[in-house]
């Protein structure tokens, strides 16, 4: 029971919208964005990989020719002295590893093999201390889904939440207009919904995925123009910045891995979309 003026207004708006939007066979053409944050660090090696590399290293040591110190270091030079000191330190560390089995606690989670001597003594007092950031960040520990410092070895994908009950989480998407291309529509929609404070690069102009869905019956009754939507996903990468929700079309966002997405997004949507995403 809408007042008459309001109803005609919405009709006019719908007409205007349909003139601007791409429609095909009753389906609204929509451009979606699969915005990914690439992995920043190497993957942790598989335990078998680690063991195999140790094994190969031992074999190499057995088969290696002795190192010709007098060829590489001139007799009586400073470099030769430093080399000899370094070798003695390594020997002492190796003996320590066999004798006392101390576990060294470091901020950077380095792999500590039993026979490997870690060259923390590499950095002499004359050289500057090299600062290394940790591979596991605070965002990992707190499981902050909005952080882009989380899960540094994995690919993170942006999903946004619409202010509705069902099918709320999805990739950012929006209608393609009659005057623009797919990639232009995707770029515009991403800026409208998630703000412009992100350094984003779209991977070419071809869509990477397709998803067709029908609008629920209740929606179709009001808007007889569309019976559903055909979404074409465009791939993009983020290099800096963060999402700013517009609080109109989307109210929340999260950066999730492919596996975590199952917990946010509807199963049907996940099944349709998962093949576009990277495992790592």
């Amino acid at each position, binding site marked *: 029971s809408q007042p008459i003026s309001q109803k005609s207004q919405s009709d006019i708006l719908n007409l205007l919208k349909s003139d601007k939007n*791409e429609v*095909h066979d009753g389906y609204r*053409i929509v451009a979606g964005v699969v915005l990914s944050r690439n*992995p*920043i*660090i*190497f993957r942790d090696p598989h335990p*078998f*990989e680690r063991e*195999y590399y140790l094994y190969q290293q031992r074999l190499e040591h*057995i*088969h*290696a*020719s*002795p190192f*010709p110190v007098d*060829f590489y270091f001139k007799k009586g030079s400073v470099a030769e002295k430093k080399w000899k000191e370094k070798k003695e330190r390594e020997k002492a560390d190796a003996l320590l590893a066999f004798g006392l089995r101390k576990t060294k606690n470091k901020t*950077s989670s380095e792999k500590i093999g039993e026979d490997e001597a870690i060259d923390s003594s590499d950095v002499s007092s004359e050289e500057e201390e090299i*600062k290394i*950031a*940790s*591979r596991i*960040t605070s965002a990992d520990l707190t499981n902050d889904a909005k952080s*882009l*410092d989380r899960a*540094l*070895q994995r690919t993170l994908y942006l999903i946004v939440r619409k202010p509705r009950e069902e099918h709320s989480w999805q990739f950012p998407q929006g209608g*393609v207009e009659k*005057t*623009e*291309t*797919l*990639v*232009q529509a995707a770029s515009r929609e991403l800026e409208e919904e998630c703000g*412009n*404070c*992100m*350094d984003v*690069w*779209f*991977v*070419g*102009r*071809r*869509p*990477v*995925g*397709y998803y*067709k869905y029908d609008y629920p019956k209740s929606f179709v009754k009001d808007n007889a123009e569309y019976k559903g939507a*055909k979404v*074409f996903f465009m791939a993009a*990468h983020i*290099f*800096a*910045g*963060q999402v700013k929700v517009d609080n109109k079309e989307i109210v929340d966002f999260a950066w999730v891995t492919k596996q975590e997405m199952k917990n946010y997004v509807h199963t049907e949507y996940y099944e349709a979309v998962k*093949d*576009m995403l*990277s*495992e790592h």
Partner: protein
Amino acid sequence: MTKSLSTTAIRGLLARTIQKSKPKSSSPDIPGSQNANITDTRYQIIKRILYETPKPELPKMTEQDLERHETIDRAWKLFLRNQQEERENELAAKYRMLNEANIELEKLGPRLFNSAQMGNKIMMFPRQMKIPTETPPLNGWNYDYKPPPSDPTKDSKPLPPDSTRDSP
């Protein structure tokens, strides 16, 4: 008045200038040069390393050892094969999606399809797209990105505006 020199005199002059232009003190060290000092220790060291390095005494592998070694080798090859298969499957799935999407796009008509297929070959990658490293950058993720003031004549990243679009 130029004095004319005889050919022998000219040859002698040339030879002396060439001799002068050669580096003097470093030549005795190069083994091949004429002034090489055969008793130079570096020459001896190099000869020793090349011809007289002792081959390390390799421990003989028993039957058990050999079996163990071969099992490790096979396990490693299997591990790599599985990894490769996973990677291939992932790529095949991605390509399937890509192909399907483009086929569906073609059904919608020429405008969207053609604009999607053209111009992809000259695409280049941005400098910000870096490969992973051992540890992350010290300052972490840059959350304070501000878009540069838009210059309508230039594009900072390699996705140029649609050439088929009419300028407003």
